[in-house]
């Protein structure tokens, strides 16, 4: 065996390698996602510290130190100089006012019915697979507003009081927030569709008017629109005619959100392939039947997420009405701060925290829905 030294025969076992780094399980996951390098580890530690320094005081305030029951401010005053937590007893005492404002207590069932009807009609409308969409939509967009209007303001037929009149000055809280946001969206939808069609129209004057209208309202802040509707609108009306304050705000909000709605709808119209228009025209359909039967059903379905996002924006923006002296949820909470029975150092924080939670729950829920619809709709038009 001349070249036996070129062979190497291992006579003993190779040394055992350490087990490969775990890539599964908690440890492996942490190793991969949190501590893959030194800089990553530092980031992780900073992140955890950041999260802790925000979450810990929050839990301390909202739960640990919180006061859950009590009759008046005595319960919520800081004990022996320590930190005071959230005063949930105050929220509990004021809860009806946060929901209904100063709506007469014996009439609040009417508001409850409106809320219930709203939810009852909205849920099947929002579920894509629920049947009777068209009936449902008509009920929601036409019948519900009329019924709610009479339920909320009152109904007197020929002098007989069916439902006592409740003037809008006593409305408040979540009721006003919902009324402004929902009316704003429902009323701005047809206006927005008309403007979107107008902007795409071939008739120059109509196009120009639509563009000016849309760009004007999109260019100015909502707060100036609200000031305008509360201070300037009365000047536009003939002598002796006055609009209810809520109605004035609604007009301002509707015009404002119609401009945004128009842009959302225009996006949907643009996404419809030209072939659809051409096909409809080839069938001899005129403009309105073409829009009503072919284009709008497709376009509106596409823009549902956009409408929901506009609604979220409007829902948040309703808080601005407190600047013109109306009592939406935030305004109502703020006005309750003046009550000496509940005045404590933590009252303001508790009130704002409650408002933040309510708005977050509504807006987050809606944005999840919008994302769900987006994913669902995404498949249809992919080419």
């Amino acid at each position, binding site marked *: 065996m001349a070249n036996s030294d070129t062979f190497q025969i291992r006579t003993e076992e190779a040394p055992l390698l350490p087990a490969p780094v775990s890539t599964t399980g908690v440890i492996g996951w942490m190793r991969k*996602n*949190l501590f*893959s390098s030194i800089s*990553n580890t530092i*980031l*992780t530690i900073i*992140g*955890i510290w*950041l*999260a802790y320094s925000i979450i810990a005081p929050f839990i301390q305030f909202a739960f640990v130190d919180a006061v859950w029951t009590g009759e008046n401010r005595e319960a919520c005053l800081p004990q022996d100089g320590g930190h005071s937590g959230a005063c949930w007893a105050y929220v509990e005492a004021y809860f009806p006012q946060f929901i209904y404002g100063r709506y007469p207590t014996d009439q609040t069932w009417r508001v409850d019915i409106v809320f219930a009807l709203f939810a009852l009609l909205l849920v099947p409308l929002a579920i894509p697979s629920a049947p009777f969409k068209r009936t449902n939509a008509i009920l929601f967009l036409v019948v519900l507003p009329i019924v709610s209007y009479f339920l909320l303001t009152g109904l007197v037929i020929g002098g007989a009081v069916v439902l006592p009149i409740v003037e809008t000055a006593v409305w408040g809280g979540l009721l006003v927030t919902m009324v402004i946001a929902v009316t704003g969206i429902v009323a701005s939808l047809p206006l927005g569709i008309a403007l979107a069609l107008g902007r795409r129209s*071939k*008739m*120059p*004057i*109509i196009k120009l*008017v639509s563009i000016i209208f849309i760009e*004007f309202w*999109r*260019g*100015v*802040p*909502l*707060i*100036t629109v609200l*000031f*305008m509707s509360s*201070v*300037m609108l*009365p*000047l*536009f*009306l*003939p*002598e002796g005619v006055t609009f209810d304050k809520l109605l004035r705000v609604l007009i301002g909000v509707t015009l404002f959100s119609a401009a945004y709605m128009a842009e959302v709808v225009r996006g949907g119209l643009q996404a419809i392939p030209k072939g659809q228009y051409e096909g409809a025209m080839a069938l001899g359909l005129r403009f309105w039947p073409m829009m009503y039967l072919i284009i709008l059903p497709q376009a509106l379905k596409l823009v549902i997420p956009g409408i929901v996002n506009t609604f*979220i924006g409007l829902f*948040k*923006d309703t*808080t*601005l009405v*407190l*600047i013109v002296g109306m009592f939406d949820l*935030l305004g109502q909470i703020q006005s309750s701060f003046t009550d000496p029975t509940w005045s404590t150092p933590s009252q*303001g924080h508790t009130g*704002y925290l409650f*408002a*933040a939670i309510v*708005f*977050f729950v509504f*807006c*987050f829920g809606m*944005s999840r829905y919008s994302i769900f619809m987006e994913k669902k709709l995404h498949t249809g038009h992919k080419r």
Partner: protein
Amino acid sequence: MSVMEQDSAGAPARASLVNDPKYRGYFYQLLLVVLLVTLGYVIVTNTIANLERQNIASGWGFLENTAGFGIIQSLAPYSETSSYGQAIFVGFLNTVLVAVVGIFFATIIGFIVGIARLSNNWVISRIAYCYVELIRNVPLLLQIFFWYFAVLRAVPQKREKWSFFFDTFHLNIAGLRGPKPIWEPGAEFIGYALIIGIVATIAVSRWARKKQDATGEQFPVFWTGLGLIVGLPIITYFVTGMPMTLEHPNFVEEGPILRRGFELGVGFNLIPEFLALTAALAIYTAAFIAEIVRAGIQAVSHGQTEAANALGLRQGPTLRLVIIPQAMRVIIPPLTSQYLNLTKNSSLAVAIAFPDLVSVGGTVLNQTGQAIEIIGIWMAVYLSLSLITSAFMNWYNQRMALVER
């Protein structure tokens, strides 16, 4: 259409005017014009009648009258004896200041959070996600109140202070104080030097790009630019005999108690209303910008990242040189509308006593009763700010657009 309606017999059947889309178009447009003119006429006559009946003056003469009220922060000379016109101008400058500072910070925070959302680090991406969802779903007004009252409660009272940066900046409930530059004759040369520095930097960066295109050699543009922009003014400062001094805030600790604390009008001061408003606007808008940035980065094909990795680029340069420039094309249009939103949202200053355009205008409105003129000014200013911002961003967008062969 009318052409198609000719019947086969060859006789050109004149379609009735009602069915002719062209004429129908004219009719609709005429109808619209008539309606708008009628509406306008009704509004104008009603308004004039109401103004006369209520004895409210109209016209722009009031802008010359003495305002008589004080404004806490002004970038232009202003006192109680200034006119309403000057007061509104001061408000306008404050709006612009909030918008510019807010946009600057919102962009930085937004990009950081947007990139953090795509981080491989689970903790970081979760925190970014929570930030975005929490901030986006709570009304801005609520956040402004939160920041304002949180800031007020957290910082030292008026006669105490926190100092930082070697005792040059101080924070207390009256605001953030720092040194104010006082310009003396000859100081304009420093300004010229700064402009020259900026122009030179642009020139150098162009030259460096050409050189890199031609030879592949890199030139340290960043450091050269920094040297030019910072160095030139500093050299000029010393050459011209130091024509600028810093006026430091004066913290009084003795004397009548109300005079203690920082002396009014000495040094540079950012009032807490400004800090809270800017912070709220920047943090709120940043959440939206973060989503735009994330979408923009995700829109860049993954192949680009892989190609960059294959070329041996590290993560930082990949992001900076490959991903972001391409993502910018997707990012800029929605970014523009966020900038516009921030500018418009700055009008919420009215809720926390920051004297912006809407707040000062509201005071003037209240004193003069001239609602139409004031609201007209508001609308005109915001519309022009919107137009200017969109024009600038469109220009930038065109520069960034993909140059196709």
